[in-house]
Protein backbone atom coordinates (compact mmCIF):
# COMPACT_ATOMS: atom_id res chain seq x y z
CA UNK A 1 0.00 0.00 0.00
CA UNK A 2 2.79 2.34 1.01
CA UNK A 3 4.53 1.57 -2.24
CA UNK A 4 1.41 2.25 -4.32
CA UNK A 5 0.92 5.64 -2.66
CA UNK A 6 4.54 6.62 -3.14
CA UNK A 7 4.37 5.46 -6.77
CA UNK A 8 1.29 7.64 -7.36
CA UNK A 9 2.97 10.55 -5.60
CA UNK A 10 6.08 10.27 -7.71
CA UNK A 11 4.26 9.95 -11.01
CA UNK A 12 1.17 12.05 -10.44
CA UNK A 13 2.06 14.44 -13.26
CA UNK A 14 2.33 11.56 -15.73
CA UNK A 15 -0.80 9.86 -14.37
CA UNK A 16 -2.84 13.06 -14.70
CA UNK A 17 -1.70 13.38 -18.29
CA UNK A 18 -2.57 9.75 -19.08
CA UNK A 19 -5.98 10.05 -17.43
CA UNK A 20 -6.98 13.17 -19.38
CA UNK A 21 -5.48 11.87 -22.64
CA UNK A 22 -7.49 8.66 -22.40
CA UNK A 23 -10.62 10.70 -21.70
CA UNK A 24 -9.95 12.69 -24.90
CA UNK A 25 -9.34 9.52 -26.93
CA UNK A 26 -12.54 8.05 -25.49
CA UNK A 27 -14.56 11.08 -26.69
CA UNK A 28 -12.88 10.78 -30.10
CA UNK A 29 -13.73 7.11 -30.54
CA UNK A 30 -17.27 7.78 -29.36
CA UNK A 31 -17.68 10.52 -31.96
CA UNK A 32 -16.58 8.15 -34.73
CA UNK A 33 -19.41 5.74 -34.08
CA UNK A 34 -22.68 6.77 -35.59
CA UNK A 35 -25.11 6.70 -32.71
CA UNK A 36 -23.30 7.47 -29.51
CA UNK A 37 -21.70 10.91 -29.46
CA UNK A 38 -24.02 12.30 -26.87
CA UNK A 39 -21.66 14.39 -24.79
CA UNK A 40 -19.34 16.52 -26.94
CA UNK A 41 -21.51 18.30 -29.52
CA UNK A 42 -22.48 21.84 -30.39
CA UNK A 43 -26.15 21.40 -29.47
CA UNK A 44 -25.75 22.79 -25.98
CA UNK A 45 -26.73 26.11 -24.46
CA UNK A 46 -23.37 27.91 -24.70
CA UNK A 47 -22.12 26.81 -28.13
CA UNK A 48 -25.62 27.03 -29.62
CA UNK A 49 -26.05 30.54 -28.25
CA UNK A 50 -22.70 31.73 -29.61
CA UNK A 51 -23.32 30.20 -33.03
CA UNK A 52 -26.73 31.88 -33.05
CA UNK A 53 -25.10 35.29 -32.49
CA UNK A 54 -22.48 34.72 -35.21
CA UNK A 55 -25.20 33.61 -37.59
CA UNK A 56 -27.19 36.81 -37.06
CA UNK A 57 -24.36 38.66 -38.80
CA UNK A 58 -23.84 36.10 -41.54
CA UNK A 59 -27.52 35.87 -42.33
CA UNK A 60 -27.54 39.20 -44.16
CA UNK A 61 -25.12 37.77 -46.72
CA UNK A 62 -27.33 34.84 -47.72
CA UNK A 63 -30.68 36.67 -47.67
CA UNK A 64 -30.59 37.32 -51.40
CA UNK A 65 -30.09 33.65 -52.31
CA UNK A 66 -32.64 32.58 -49.75
CA UNK A 67 -35.28 34.94 -51.16
CA UNK A 68 -34.64 33.61 -54.63
CA UNK A 69 -35.02 30.03 -53.45
CA UNK A 70 -38.29 30.83 -51.65
CA UNK A 71 -39.78 32.60 -54.66
CA UNK A 72 -38.83 29.63 -56.87
CA UNK A 73 -40.55 27.30 -54.43
CA UNK A 74 -43.60 29.59 -54.44
CA UNK A 75 -43.79 29.43 -58.21
CA UNK A 76 -43.60 25.64 -58.10
CA UNK A 77 -46.37 25.40 -55.53
CA UNK A 78 -48.57 27.81 -57.50
CA UNK A 79 -48.05 25.70 -60.60
CA UNK A 80 -49.09 22.62 -58.64
CA UNK A 81 -52.27 24.38 -57.53
CA UNK A 82 -53.14 25.17 -61.14
CA UNK A 83 -52.75 21.54 -62.14
CA UNK A 84 -56.19 20.70 -60.72
CA UNK A 85 -58.63 18.94 -62.93
CA UNK A 86 -60.98 21.31 -64.80
CA UNK A 87 -64.11 19.38 -64.01
CA UNK A 88 -63.05 19.36 -60.41
CA UNK A 89 -62.76 23.13 -60.10
CA UNK A 90 -66.20 23.62 -61.65
CA UNK A 91 -67.89 21.86 -58.80
CA UNK A 92 -69.48 24.35 -56.50
CA UNK A 93 -69.90 22.31 -53.39
CA UNK A 94 -66.71 20.88 -51.96
CA UNK A 95 -67.01 18.48 -49.09
CA UNK A 96 -63.84 17.88 -47.12
CA UNK A 97 -63.97 14.63 -45.22
CA UNK A 98 -61.10 14.82 -42.76
CA UNK A 99 -61.39 11.12 -41.99
CA UNK A 100 -60.07 10.39 -45.46
CA UNK A 101 -56.84 12.27 -44.76
CA UNK A 102 -53.97 10.73 -42.96
CA UNK A 103 -51.03 12.92 -42.06
CA UNK A 104 -47.88 10.86 -42.38
CA UNK A 105 -45.19 13.51 -42.05
CA UNK A 106 -44.86 16.52 -39.83
CA UNK A 107 -42.59 19.32 -41.10
CA UNK A 108 -40.74 21.62 -38.71
CA UNK A 109 -39.00 24.72 -40.06
CA UNK A 110 -35.57 25.65 -38.69
CA UNK A 111 -32.62 27.88 -39.42
CA UNK A 112 -29.05 26.65 -39.83
CA UNK A 113 -26.81 28.60 -37.46
CA UNK A 114 -23.55 26.77 -38.13
CA UNK A 115 -22.56 25.09 -41.38
CA UNK A 116 -19.50 22.89 -41.94
CA UNK A 117 -18.65 21.46 -45.33
CA UNK A 118 -14.83 21.45 -45.53
CA UNK A 119 -13.98 18.73 -43.04
CA UNK A 120 -14.18 14.96 -43.29
CA UNK A 121 -17.00 14.66 -40.76
CA UNK A 122 -19.30 17.61 -41.21
CA UNK A 123 -22.02 18.63 -38.80
CA UNK A 124 -24.56 21.45 -38.95
CA UNK A 125 -26.26 23.15 -36.01
CA UNK A 126 -29.89 24.38 -36.13
CA UNK A 127 -31.80 26.72 -33.85
CA UNK A 128 -34.61 24.30 -32.94
CA UNK A 129 -34.40 21.58 -30.33
CA UNK A 130 -36.43 19.19 -28.21
CA UNK A 131 -38.75 22.05 -27.20
CA UNK A 132 -39.87 22.24 -30.82
CA UNK A 133 -40.20 18.50 -31.33
CA UNK A 134 -36.75 17.69 -32.72
CA UNK A 135 -35.44 14.21 -31.89
CA UNK A 136 -32.50 12.24 -33.21
CA UNK A 137 -32.80 10.46 -36.60
CA UNK A 138 -35.14 12.85 -38.38
CA UNK A 139 -34.56 13.80 -42.02
CA UNK A 140 -33.48 17.35 -42.90
CA UNK A 141 -34.26 18.85 -46.34
CA UNK A 142 -34.88 22.16 -48.06
CA UNK A 143 -36.76 22.85 -51.26
CA UNK A 144 -33.78 21.85 -53.41
CA UNK A 145 -33.01 18.49 -51.82
CA UNK A 146 -31.71 16.53 -48.87
CA UNK A 147 -29.22 17.93 -46.36
CA UNK A 148 -28.76 15.37 -43.58
CA UNK A 149 -30.15 13.60 -40.54
CA UNK A 150 -30.53 15.05 -37.03
CA UNK A 151 -28.10 13.57 -34.55
CA UNK A 152 -28.39 14.99 -31.04
CA UNK A 153 -30.75 17.61 -29.64
CA UNK A 154 -30.74 19.82 -26.57
CA UNK A 155 -33.77 21.80 -25.42
CA UNK A 156 -33.19 24.66 -27.89
CA UNK A 157 -30.60 23.46 -30.44
CA UNK A 158 -29.81 20.33 -32.43
CA UNK A 159 -26.94 19.01 -34.55
CA UNK A 160 -27.34 17.49 -37.99
CA UNK A 161 -25.13 14.80 -39.49
CA UNK A 162 -24.59 16.27 -42.94
CA UNK A 163 -24.65 14.01 -46.01
CA UNK A 164 -21.07 15.31 -46.36
CA UNK A 165 -19.92 13.02 -43.54
CA UNK A 166 -17.90 9.82 -43.80
CA UNK A 167 -20.46 8.12 -41.52
CA UNK A 168 -23.48 9.17 -43.54
CA UNK A 169 -25.51 6.58 -45.52
CA UNK A 170 -28.83 7.46 -47.14
CA UNK A 171 -31.08 5.11 -49.10
CA UNK A 172 -31.66 6.54 -52.61
CA UNK A 173 -33.02 5.34 -55.95
CA UNK A 174 -32.96 6.17 -59.63
CA UNK A 175 -35.99 8.27 -60.51
CA UNK A 176 -36.66 6.58 -63.84
CA UNK A 177 -36.20 2.91 -62.97
CA UNK A 178 -36.51 2.71 -59.16
CA UNK A 179 -33.25 0.82 -58.64
CA UNK A 180 -32.02 1.33 -55.11
CA UNK A 181 -28.54 2.27 -53.90
CA UNK A 182 -26.99 4.09 -51.00
CA UNK A 183 -25.47 7.53 -50.87
CA UNK A 184 -22.08 8.19 -49.30
CA UNK A 185 -19.34 10.79 -49.54
CA UNK A 186 -15.65 10.32 -50.40
CA UNK A 187 -14.51 13.51 -48.68
CA UNK A 188 -13.20 15.25 -51.81
CA UNK A 189 -15.63 17.79 -53.27
CA UNK A 190 -18.48 19.28 -51.25
CA UNK A 191 -20.79 19.35 -54.26
CA UNK A 192 -20.20 15.74 -55.31
CA UNK A 193 -21.35 12.60 -53.49
CA UNK A 194 -21.10 8.92 -54.43
CA UNK A 195 -23.74 6.31 -55.15
CA UNK A 196 -22.86 2.81 -53.86
CA UNK A 197 -24.32 -0.68 -54.22
CA UNK A 198 -26.02 0.03 -57.54
CA UNK A 199 -26.78 -3.23 -59.41
CA UNK A 200 -25.08 -3.45 -62.82
CA UNK A 201 -28.32 -4.21 -64.66
CA UNK A 202 -29.62 -0.77 -63.69
CA UNK A 203 -28.86 1.15 -66.87
CA UNK A 204 -27.71 4.62 -65.92
CA UNK A 205 -26.84 7.65 -68.03
CA UNK A 206 -25.07 10.89 -67.20
CA UNK A 207 -27.70 13.39 -66.11
CA UNK A 208 -30.12 10.87 -64.59
CA UNK A 209 -31.92 12.15 -61.50
CA UNK A 210 -31.44 10.50 -58.12
CA UNK A 211 -34.12 10.84 -55.42
CA UNK A 212 -34.52 9.40 -51.92
CA UNK A 213 -35.78 5.83 -51.85
CA UNK A 214 -38.28 5.85 -49.01
CA UNK A 215 -37.06 2.47 -47.78
CA UNK A 216 -36.07 3.92 -44.41
CA UNK A 217 -38.41 5.68 -42.03
CA UNK A 218 -36.28 8.84 -42.12
CA UNK A 219 -36.91 10.38 -45.55
CA UNK A 220 -40.15 10.23 -47.52
CA UNK A 221 -39.86 8.84 -51.02
CA UNK A 222 -38.91 11.17 -53.87
CA UNK A 223 -36.99 13.98 -52.18
CA UNK A 224 -34.53 15.23 -54.86
CA UNK A 225 -30.83 14.47 -54.28
CA UNK A 226 -28.88 15.24 -57.46
CA UNK A 227 -27.95 14.16 -60.97
CA UNK A 228 -25.35 11.64 -62.14
CA UNK A 229 -22.12 13.45 -63.03
CA UNK A 230 -19.95 10.56 -64.26
CA UNK A 231 -19.45 6.82 -63.63
CA UNK A 232 -17.14 3.94 -64.55
CA UNK A 233 -17.71 0.21 -64.84
CA UNK A 234 -15.13 -2.34 -63.74
CA UNK A 235 -15.34 -6.18 -63.58
CA UNK A 236 -19.00 -6.07 -64.52
CA UNK A 237 -19.80 -3.75 -61.64
CA UNK A 238 -20.04 -0.03 -61.17
CA UNK A 239 -16.64 1.13 -59.94
CA UNK A 240 -17.91 4.53 -58.89
CA UNK A 241 -20.90 6.74 -59.64
CA UNK A 242 -20.48 10.45 -58.89
CA UNK A 243 -23.54 12.57 -58.22
CA UNK A 244 -23.76 16.37 -58.40
CA UNK A 245 -25.99 17.60 -55.59
CA UNK A 246 -28.90 19.93 -56.34
CA UNK A 247 -28.15 21.75 -53.09
CA UNK A 248 -25.19 24.08 -52.73
CA UNK A 249 -23.99 22.75 -49.38
CA UNK A 250 -21.86 25.86 -48.81
CA UNK A 251 -24.81 28.23 -48.62
CA UNK A 252 -27.69 26.84 -46.62
CA UNK A 253 -30.23 28.95 -44.78
CA UNK A 254 -33.65 27.69 -43.79
CA UNK A 255 -34.41 23.98 -43.68
CA UNK A 256 -37.33 21.68 -42.94
CA UNK A 257 -37.11 18.76 -40.56
CA UNK A 258 -39.31 15.78 -41.36
CA UNK A 259 -40.88 13.84 -38.53
CA UNK A 260 -42.37 10.55 -39.73
CA UNK A 261 -45.48 10.12 -37.58
CA UNK A 262 -45.78 6.44 -38.52
CA UNK A 263 -42.20 5.68 -37.52
CA UNK A 264 -43.00 3.87 -34.27
CA UNK A 265 -45.74 1.84 -35.87
CA UNK A 266 -43.37 0.72 -38.65
CA UNK A 267 -40.45 -0.03 -36.34
CA UNK A 268 -42.66 -1.91 -33.86
CA UNK A 269 -44.14 -3.97 -36.64
CA UNK A 270 -40.72 -4.80 -38.06
CA UNK A 271 -39.39 -5.83 -34.66
CA UNK A 272 -42.45 -7.94 -34.04
CA UNK A 273 -42.10 -9.83 -37.29
CA UNK A 274 -38.38 -10.36 -36.60
CA UNK A 275 -39.16 -11.91 -33.22
CA UNK A 276 -41.81 -14.22 -34.49
Amino acid at each position, binding site marked *: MQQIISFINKN*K*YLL*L*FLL*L*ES*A*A*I*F*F*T*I*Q*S*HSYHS*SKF*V*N*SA*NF*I*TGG*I*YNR*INNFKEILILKDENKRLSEENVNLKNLLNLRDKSDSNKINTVIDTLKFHQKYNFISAKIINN*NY*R*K*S*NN*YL*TIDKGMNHGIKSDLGVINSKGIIGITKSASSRYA*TILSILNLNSRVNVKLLKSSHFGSLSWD*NKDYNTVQLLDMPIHAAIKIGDTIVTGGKSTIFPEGIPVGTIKDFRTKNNNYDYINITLFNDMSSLGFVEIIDNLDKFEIINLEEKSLNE
Partner: protein
Amino acid sequence: MNRETINIALLFIGLILLQIVVLDNINFLGYINPFLYILFIFLYPIKKIDSTLIFLSFFLGLSIDFFLNSGGINAAATLFIAFIRIPVLKSVLGKRDIDYTMSSLKKLPFAKMYTYIVILTFIHHFIVFGLEYFKTSHFEIIFIKTFLTGIFTVILVMISFTFISRR
Protein backbone atom coordinates in the same frame (compact mmCIF):
# COMPACT_ATOMS: atom_id res chain seq x y z
CA MET B 1 -6.18 36.79 -8.36
CA ASN B 2 -2.92 38.30 -9.46
CA ARG B 3 -2.25 39.85 -12.83
CA GLU B 4 -0.83 36.71 -14.37
CA THR B 5 -3.96 34.67 -13.59
CA ILE B 6 -6.23 37.31 -15.14
CA ASN B 7 -4.03 37.49 -18.23
CA ILE B 8 -4.17 33.70 -18.67
CA ALA B 9 -7.96 33.64 -18.24
CA LEU B 10 -8.41 36.40 -20.83
CA LEU B 11 -6.04 34.64 -23.23
CA PHE B 12 -7.95 31.35 -22.79
CA ILE B 13 -11.38 32.84 -23.58
CA GLY B 14 -10.04 35.22 -26.23
CA LEU B 15 -8.30 32.46 -28.20
CA ILE B 16 -11.39 30.20 -28.16
CA LEU B 17 -13.60 33.02 -29.47
CA LEU B 18 -11.02 34.04 -32.10
CA GLN B 19 -10.77 30.42 -33.27
CA ILE B 20 -14.55 29.92 -33.51
CA VAL B 21 -15.66 33.30 -34.86
CA VAL B 22 -12.85 34.09 -37.30
CA LEU B 23 -10.31 31.36 -37.95
CA ASP B 24 -12.67 28.42 -38.57
CA ASN B 25 -14.32 30.39 -41.36
CA ILE B 26 -11.18 31.20 -43.34
CA ASN B 27 -11.15 28.08 -45.58
CA PHE B 28 -7.99 29.26 -47.35
CA LEU B 29 -7.42 27.28 -50.60
CA GLY B 30 -10.57 25.35 -49.82
CA TYR B 31 -9.84 23.65 -46.53
CA ILE B 32 -7.01 25.31 -44.60
CA ASN B 33 -8.13 26.65 -41.23
CA PRO B 34 -5.21 27.52 -38.92
CA PHE B 35 -5.36 26.40 -35.28
CA LEU B 36 -4.06 29.58 -33.68
CA TYR B 37 -5.52 28.59 -30.28
CA ILE B 38 -2.37 26.56 -29.50
CA LEU B 39 -0.68 29.95 -29.04
CA PHE B 40 -1.93 29.46 -25.47
CA ILE B 41 0.64 26.69 -24.93
CA PHE B 42 3.44 28.89 -26.29
CA LEU B 43 2.51 31.96 -24.24
CA TYR B 44 1.93 30.09 -20.98
CA PRO B 45 4.77 30.78 -18.51
CA ILE B 46 7.43 28.06 -18.49
CA LYS B 47 7.53 26.12 -15.26
CA LYS B 48 9.15 22.83 -14.38
CA ILE B 49 6.07 20.78 -13.48
CA ASP B 50 2.70 22.35 -13.83
CA SER B 51 -0.53 20.38 -13.43
CA THR B 52 -2.56 23.55 -14.06
CA LEU B 53 -1.36 23.72 -17.66
CA ILE B 54 -2.29 20.07 -18.18
CA PHE B 55 -5.84 20.79 -17.00
CA LEU B 56 -6.11 24.07 -18.90
CA SER B 57 -4.87 22.61 -22.19
CA PHE B 58 -7.33 19.72 -21.88
CA PHE B 59 -10.25 22.08 -21.36
CA LEU B 60 -9.02 24.45 -24.09
CA GLY B 61 -9.03 21.60 -26.59
CA LEU B 62 -12.34 20.24 -25.32
CA SER B 63 -13.99 23.67 -25.69
CA ILE B 64 -12.87 23.80 -29.31
CA ASP B 65 -14.20 20.24 -29.78
CA PHE B 66 -17.60 21.26 -28.42
CA PHE B 67 -17.85 23.95 -31.08
CA LEU B 68 -16.53 21.83 -33.95
CA ASN B 69 -18.40 18.61 -33.05
CA SER B 70 -15.10 16.74 -33.24
CA GLY B 71 -15.25 14.45 -30.20
CA GLY B 72 -11.97 14.80 -28.29
CA ILE B 73 -9.54 15.36 -31.15
CA ASN B 74 -8.35 18.84 -30.21
CA ALA B 75 -8.31 17.97 -26.50
CA ALA B 76 -6.00 14.98 -27.12
CA ALA B 77 -3.63 16.95 -29.37
CA THR B 78 -3.42 20.06 -27.17
CA LEU B 79 -2.92 17.99 -24.04
CA PHE B 80 -0.12 16.06 -25.72
CA ILE B 81 1.89 19.11 -26.79
CA ALA B 82 1.37 20.69 -23.36
CA PHE B 83 2.88 17.55 -21.84
CA ILE B 84 5.91 17.33 -24.12
CA ARG B 85 6.71 21.04 -24.38
CA ILE B 86 9.34 21.07 -21.60
CA PRO B 87 11.28 18.02 -22.96
CA VAL B 88 11.12 19.53 -26.48
CA LEU B 89 12.33 22.90 -25.22
CA LYS B 90 15.20 21.20 -23.41
CA SER B 91 16.34 19.33 -26.49
CA VAL B 92 15.97 22.42 -28.71
CA LEU B 93 18.11 24.47 -26.32
CA GLY B 94 20.50 21.56 -25.96
CA LYS B 95 20.59 21.87 -22.20
CA ARG B 96 19.95 19.30 -19.52
CA ASP B 97 17.99 21.78 -17.47
CA ILE B 98 16.37 25.13 -18.24
CA ASP B 99 16.59 28.36 -16.34
CA TYR B 100 12.95 28.50 -15.21
CA THR B 101 13.22 32.09 -14.02
CA MET B 102 13.23 33.44 -17.56
CA SER B 103 9.54 32.34 -17.70
CA SER B 104 8.95 33.49 -21.27
CA LEU B 105 9.74 32.42 -24.80
CA LYS B 106 10.32 35.98 -26.01
CA LYS B 107 13.82 36.06 -24.57
CA LEU B 108 14.94 33.00 -26.50
CA PRO B 109 17.08 33.36 -29.64
CA PHE B 110 14.84 33.57 -32.69
CA ALA B 111 16.01 30.40 -34.47
CA LYS B 112 15.54 28.23 -31.39
CA MET B 113 12.14 29.66 -30.60
CA TYR B 114 11.16 29.05 -34.23
CA THR B 115 12.25 25.38 -34.14
CA TYR B 116 10.38 24.86 -30.89
CA ILE B 117 7.16 26.33 -32.30
CA VAL B 118 7.43 24.39 -35.57
CA ILE B 119 7.97 21.04 -33.81
CA LEU B 120 5.04 21.46 -31.42
CA THR B 121 2.70 22.82 -34.11
CA PHE B 122 3.32 19.95 -36.51
CA ILE B 123 2.94 17.32 -33.78
CA HIS B 124 -0.36 18.94 -32.75
CA HIS B 125 -1.69 19.09 -36.31
CA PHE B 126 -0.63 15.54 -37.07
CA ILE B 127 -2.57 14.24 -34.05
CA VAL B 128 -5.61 16.33 -34.98
CA PHE B 129 -5.80 15.14 -38.58
CA GLY B 130 -4.70 11.61 -37.75
CA LEU B 131 -7.54 11.21 -35.26
CA GLU B 132 -9.99 12.93 -37.57
CA TYR B 133 -9.46 10.38 -40.36
CA PHE B 134 -8.53 7.45 -38.10
CA LYS B 135 -7.55 5.20 -41.00
CA THR B 136 -4.17 4.31 -42.49
CA SER B 137 -5.63 4.48 -46.00
CA HIS B 138 -5.88 8.25 -45.62
CA PHE B 139 -2.17 8.77 -44.86
CA GLU B 140 -1.61 10.97 -47.89
CA ILE B 141 -4.35 13.47 -47.09
CA ILE B 142 -3.37 13.50 -43.40
CA PHE B 143 0.19 14.54 -44.31
CA ILE B 144 -0.91 17.14 -46.85
CA LYS B 145 -3.36 18.72 -44.42
CA THR B 146 -0.83 18.64 -41.55
CA PHE B 147 1.81 20.29 -43.71
CA LEU B 148 -0.31 23.06 -45.25
CA THR B 149 -2.30 23.92 -42.11
CA GLY B 150 0.91 23.73 -40.05
CA ILE B 151 2.64 26.35 -42.20
CA PHE B 152 -0.36 28.65 -41.89
CA THR B 153 -0.52 28.22 -38.10
CA VAL B 154 3.23 28.81 -37.65
CA ILE B 155 3.03 32.04 -39.67
CA LEU B 156 0.11 33.29 -37.56
CA VAL B 157 1.86 32.32 -34.31
CA MET B 158 5.02 34.18 -35.36
CA ILE B 159 3.00 37.28 -36.32
CA SER B 160 1.20 37.24 -32.96
CA PHE B 161 4.55 36.88 -31.20
CA THR B 162 5.99 39.98 -32.85
CA PHE B 163 2.88 41.95 -31.95
CA ILE B 164 2.99 40.80 -28.33
CA SER B 165 6.71 41.39 -27.84
CA ARG B 166 6.48 44.87 -29.33
CA ARG B 167 4.15 46.00 -26.56
